[in-house]
């Protein structure tokens, strides 16, 4: 009796399965190929960068990273100043953009009425669509003179004795680059934070509210803890953009490969030097050095991402015991 039922019930199901399998297989194959394609492409890029930079790697070795000397005429290359410029300008950008972006996102989701939050949210996203060369031009003609006149001069007058703010107020330099980058990544971090914050369950907010939380306390107890890891993810994306940004940075950073303590001093970045000098690089060793800068930019982005992810993991893993479904 039991066997009969089993036979009857399994046969039709087996049949329909047999029909489904080819489609499933095809779908799997397509998605797998797409995924594999990206990985192969990435592998190929890294391989190519390794190959093309081998001349410079062999000649300068580890000194390439620590040395600040970049002298194409004498064939001496060291990328220290570029690495420094890329990392510091990105960190300035993150430090400024994060509070501003999270503030905008919280205002748009928690405080602003809908007739205001929708258009403002749209405008912020529009900022992300502006080409970086426009940011650069605006930076040179509007932003840099403003920074020089109204930020660097007064700060330099008051705090010029601190190395961080020493030197002549040139306008162009590390600070301007960091600020331009901050403006460029604010829309990214804002858009992601806003989506994450608005996906915090109402039940969480109401839980805090029912305990007698004020608007700020609801944000502090329910919204931000819940959205924390998502917001940090948005910050990582913003940082990725800042690390790789080329055009706007090269237009305002001053393009001088030096490491200075002062935020007002001109600096340089890895992406900027590649873009600026690629056409001039006629020697093999010059070209190879530039490609090694590219490889290092890859590496720096990778390491910064890794560090940021470790940071997220350590702050967002929450208390012991994990989550039970």
């Amino acid at each position, binding site marked *: 009796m039991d066997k009969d039922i089993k036979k009857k019930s399994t046969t039709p199901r087996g049949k329909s399965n047999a029909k489904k399998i080819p489609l499933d297989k095809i779908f799997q194959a397509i998605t797998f190929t797409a995924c594999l394609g990206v990985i192969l492409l990435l592998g190929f890029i890294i391989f190519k960068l390794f190959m093309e930079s081998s001349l410079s790697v062999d000649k300068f070795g580890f000194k390439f990273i620590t040395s600040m000397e970049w002298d194409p005429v004498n064939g001496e290359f060291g990328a220290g100043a570029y690495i420094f410029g890329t990392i510091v300008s990105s960190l300035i950008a993150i430090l400024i953009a994060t509070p501003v972006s999270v503030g905008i996102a919280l205002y748009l989701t928690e405080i602003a009425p809908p007739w205001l939050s929708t258009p403002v949210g749209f405008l912020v996203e529009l900022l992300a669509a502006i080409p970086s060369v426009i940011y650069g031009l605006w930076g040179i003609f509007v932003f840099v003179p403003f920074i020089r006149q109204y930020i660097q001069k007064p700060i330099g007058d008051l705090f010029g004795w601190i190395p961080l703010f020493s030197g002549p107020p040139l306008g162009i330099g590390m600070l301007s680059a960091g600020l331009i980058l901050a403006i460029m990544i604010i829309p990214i971090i804002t858009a992601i934070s806003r989506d994450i914050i608005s996906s915090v369950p109402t039940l969480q907010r109401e839980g805090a509210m029912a305990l007698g939380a004020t608007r700020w306390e609801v944000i502090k107890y329910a919204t931000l803890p819940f959205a924390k890891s998502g917001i940090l993810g948005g910050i990582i994306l913003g940082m990725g953009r800042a690390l790789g940004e080329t055009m706007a940075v090269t237009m305002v950073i001053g393009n001088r490969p030096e490491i200075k303590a002062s935020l007002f001093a001109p600096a340089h970045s890895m992406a900027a030097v590649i873009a600026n000098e690629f056409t001039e690089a006629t020697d093999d060793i010059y070209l190879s050095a530039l490609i090694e800068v590219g490889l290092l930019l890859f590496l720096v982005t990778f390491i910064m991402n890794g560090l940021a992810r470790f940071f997220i993991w350590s702050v967002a893993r929450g208390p012991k*015991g994990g989550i*039970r479904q």
Partner: protein
Amino acid sequence: MEKVIQVNDVKAWYGSLQTLKGISLEISKNRVTAIIGPSGCGKSTFIRCLNRMHEVVPGAKVEGKILINKTDIYSTQVDPVEIRRRIGMVFQKPNPFPTMTIYNNVASGLKLNGVNNKKVLGEAVEKSLRRAALWDEVKDRLNHSGMSLSGGQQQRLCIARALAVEPDILLMDEPASALDPISTLRIEELVQELKQQYTIVIVTHNMQQAARISDYTAFFLNGEIIEYDITENIFTKPKDKRTEDYITGRFG
């Protein structure tokens, strides 16, 4: 019998949809009052009006008068945040704060009230967890995540969180609807114990539950109160035909 909550002609809206059409009733101290009725009859709206949680939904509006301990909670001089601090609320689904430990979940209400003394907090956390019948299960892992508990335990954690601030009144919005039968039974037993000290208003779509645990029952239909009486009367000799139809399962 002392009346803790006096509700007089309360009307409520979500946007243009009127969900309460003039509710008047009085709720007795240290008793369990159940609100029953089909989905969409306004029972959840009603208890959300009692701690001014209804108005936090965009477009929501309340009219009428609610006195709690003789204070008009909708008076302009009253801060809704203060009202919510004095009234505990438990929701349909357990909602512990996921990034907090069990301890901090229970302590969160007190911390919101400005209590920072470790000793006071520790005592309050233990007392609340004991009252919520959860202490024995979690006492060795107070520093674990609130989310590491089972659904029923999480709901009792939320009850403990609500009790920690020593409210007089506990509002429960279908507290067992997302739980399995055993967890439901534990919550029901808990409600029976808690009524010694608290006035409990519980919304439920489960009529057997209302019959088991409540002293008074109000039957809501389409935003109106059809019948409000001692629970026994509602379930054995309802006066209104619609109440009878509902409790005998003819609709809803």
